[in-house]
């Protein structure tokens, strides 16, 4: 396995935080260091996802939501536009969302276009045919 990092530095909550990409075979895991995916970082979140989707167009993407306690409409929209701009060719999975985040994802019926898994490992074990996009 080759480890690759695409850190984006942002000054948030008086400390620097960065989205990180971690390679796992043909999958890229996006790690989210902040507790809140809110409107103050929606643009950064979208740009990070777009850059990732463009730079390695064949990988699957797993977004690790385990530490995220809050997701608002702007970051939900960031996720969806990034997904849309790849022409729905990319398979995206959302791993380990907390209850509050899951409620927002469910309100948007997001499983129609992406997979949701209970754990990160489940996402990494998903077979291509179970990734909902394009299916």
């Amino acid at each position, binding site marked *: 396995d080759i480890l690759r990092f695409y850190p984006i530095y942002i000054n948030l*909550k008086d400390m620097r935080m960065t989205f990180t990409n971690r390679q796992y075979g043909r999958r890229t895991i996006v790690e989210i260091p902040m507790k*809140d995916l*809110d*409107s*103050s970082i929606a643009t950064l979140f*979208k740009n990070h996802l777009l850059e990732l989707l463009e730079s390695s167009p064949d990988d699957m993407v797993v977004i690790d939501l385990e530490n995220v306690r*809050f997701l*608002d*409409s*702007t970051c*939900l*929209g*960031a996720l*969806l*536009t990034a*997904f*849309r701009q790849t022409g*729905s060719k990319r398979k995206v999975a959302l791993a380990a969302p907390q*209850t*509050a985040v899951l*409620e*927002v994802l469910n*309100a*948007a*019926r*997001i499983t*129609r*276009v992406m997979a949701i898994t209970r754990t990160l490992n489940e996402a990494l074990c998903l077979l291509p045919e179970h990734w909902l*996009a394009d299916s």
Partner: protein
Amino acid sequence: MSHRVSLGIDSRVESVRFLRAAIRGLCDEAEVPASLISRVELCVAEAVCNAIEHAYARQTDRKIWVNWVRHDDTLAIRISDCGQSMATDLFAMARDIRLEVDPDDPCSLRGRGRGLALIHAFMTAVDYTSADGLNHLDMRLAIPQSPQSLPSCGEDADSPSSGTP
């Protein structure tokens, strides 16, 4: 008995997480079930972000007020600004905005335009009014009564538990 707390912030997105934290604290103290607290938190954040972005066009030195009232069976929250009002028909339309994504409809994968729809989805009633240069978004959430808030000390006094520790 009703309980009321009012809150205010400057119109900066960086302040919204503090407002959310205060709302969480208030709802927790008011024994709002945890599953509803996260909805309230989201809806307050969406409404406040709308005021910052649309009513104030991202000016950061304006004020936003949140009036939080716990009644016995409902939570009533009013978000107020003194910026640009929203057209009444725009607000009425928001009720019908589809939240659900549809793989065959690229428009359903849009980046914006889900805030009011989420508020409608999660709150029991939502209203928007403007008067005297102030705009108010009112949301109400029905709160199920918890069993422990029913009187119970009559029982306690009648049926003493076995005494010594």
